[in-house]
């Protein structure tokens, strides 16, 4: 895993160059809506208790009672996968929101005021980028002790440089445009120019990029939880479930491949959607 912050962003558009048929757009969208709905409504769903152990019913194959079978402690794999998915999405959305807010603000300030401020902010970003992202995440989480908030903030910090870079690059070119000059000539203050003139124009590129970053964050959380460095048990995480049930891979592949499929489909859908949004945006910008 990998937290490929800037580099994936740079190459994502080239991963897909063709317009996929619209089915390839609606299926991922449907999956994401389903994933969000199910993870929000998890406590209300008629599912077996994800924490109840049944030592007489361990490693049961999929059945009507347990759609994805049971794990090595007899717990329902589907119910646990849904709770794990909830953690993944929470971390994905939370950390990207953090990166977007902090990185976007820093990039905005740095691209607008340039000079000294820009230099300091760029230096700070270089420092964050000078560690392999996953290793830095592992180090922070392991020193400070794993918890949901910490995982969100840690991954969020790792996303700050790439959001800052995008915001800065866009602000640099926007700051020289006529409408900004006009606003300044009318005596608008810097704060208002930033908030009312520049920020609305930054929203589109930053939001398109955010979707791809949520996918990256979900992968990163899965990697951390695979190493046991995310939300601590008994709270299920997709990576943690896979790591624990790996020992029974031959006897009960469903206990591993169930959460694995949930993880895979979620990230794949986010990638396809993010790709599409970004491509549409590129076209719109080319048309302007």
């Amino acid at each position, binding site marked *: 895993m990998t937290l490929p912050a800037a580099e994936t962003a740079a190459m994502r558009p080239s991963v*897909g160059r063709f317009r996929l048929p619209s089915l390839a757009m609606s299926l991922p969208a449907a999956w994401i809506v389903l994933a969000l709905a199910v993870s929000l409504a998890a406590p209300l769903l008629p599912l077996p208790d994800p924490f109840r152990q049944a030592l007489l019913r361990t490693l049961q194959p999929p059945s009507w009672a347990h759609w994805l079978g049971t794990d090595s402690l007899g717990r329902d794999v589907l119910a646990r996968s849904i709770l794990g998915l909830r953690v993944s999405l929470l971390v994905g959305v939370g950390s990207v929101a953090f990166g977007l807010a902090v990185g976007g603000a820093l990039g905005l300030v740095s691209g607008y005021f340039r000079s000294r401020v820009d230099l300091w902010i760029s230096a700070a970003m270089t420092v964050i980028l000078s*560690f392999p992202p*996953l290793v830095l995440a592992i*180090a922070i989480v392991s020193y400070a002790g794993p918890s949901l908030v910490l995982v969100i903030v840690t991954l969020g910090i790792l996303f700050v440089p790439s959001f800052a870079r995008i915001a800065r690059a866009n602000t640099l070119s926007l700051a020289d445009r006529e409408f900004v000059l006009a606003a300044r000539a009318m005596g608008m203050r810097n704060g208002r120019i930033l908030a009312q003139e520049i920020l609305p124009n930054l929203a589109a590129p930053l939001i398109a990029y955010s979707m791809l970053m949520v996918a990256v964050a979900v992968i990163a959380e899965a990697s951390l939880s695979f*190493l046991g460095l995310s939300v601590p048990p008994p709270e299920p995480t997709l990576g943690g479930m896979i790591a624990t049930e790996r020992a029974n*891979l031959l006897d009960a592949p469903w206990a591993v491949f169930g959460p694995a499929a949930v993880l895979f489909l979620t990230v*794949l859908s986010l990638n396809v959607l993010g790709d599409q949004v970004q491509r549409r945006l590129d076209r719109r910008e080319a048309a302007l």
Partner: protein
Amino acid sequence: MLAKGLRHAASLVGILFSVSLITFLLMNLAPGDPALAILGETATPESIAALRDSLGLDLPLWHRYLSWLGGVLQGDLGHSFRANESVAGAILQRFPVTLELLIGAQVVALGLAIPAGIYTAYRARSAADKASLAISLSFVSPPPFLIGIVLVYVFALQFGMLPATGYTPLGESIVGNLRTMALPVLTLALFEFPVYMRLLRSDMVRTLQQNFISLARAIGLPPWRILLGHALRPSSFSLITVVGINMGRLIGGAVIVEVLFGLPGIGDLLVNGIYQREYLIVQGVVLFVGVFFVLINIVVDLLYGLLDPRVRLDAARR
């Protein structure tokens, strides 16, 4: 030119210092007493006080940083209490495994990506090209350990062709080493190759539209000579950069893959250091990986200039 070189060197030193500072602060600002963490819950107050004294934990922070940095510059990363070996020794002993994994993965990924990238660029918009896009999206999407688990399930558990875990040193048996490294290397390579393939493809599609390619075609050169002899080199610059940058992404992936396959590399050392609360080992590995990563990026920067005359000219003009 000299001034530029000096400026580069100064910023390199600056980055290396900040890497060391962050590594140090991470450990020293973390909650809890490092002495207690090193000795474990059963430690007596006297032994904790003695260790605090010998680690200099009661000195001011900047003082501790400088003396730690002084040790690091002499290759002293501290001593692991549980394993009773020097941290630097443990890292150097395990680094070759990680390096073999990283290099093997890059070689296999490029071995898959270059032919596939050339073919899909040559037959752009064909069915094979579209299929390769779907394949790349599905390989980029799972985290590397998922690819690894599927490979283990198929090749180790179902067919029993390769061992699922374990490591045979290269010095012991070359075949044994390759057998134990095959699945880990393939796991990382499959994770990287789609990105390389699509990158080469899109650059090559652009190159193939240029005039000198039309000329070569008009002369009547066979397609393979045009593709390999004329189009490949000018299409591969972004590929080279990304292969270099990806070393960092791969180090992260290598940590997971080493844990998954039980390879004794530095990723395994890092994670076991965390599980056993060996803070000095964790600190040492993080510092080592950070410095390695910074140096790789510098080398890639320099290589890029050497390979692409346009970058060299640009730099000289500035």
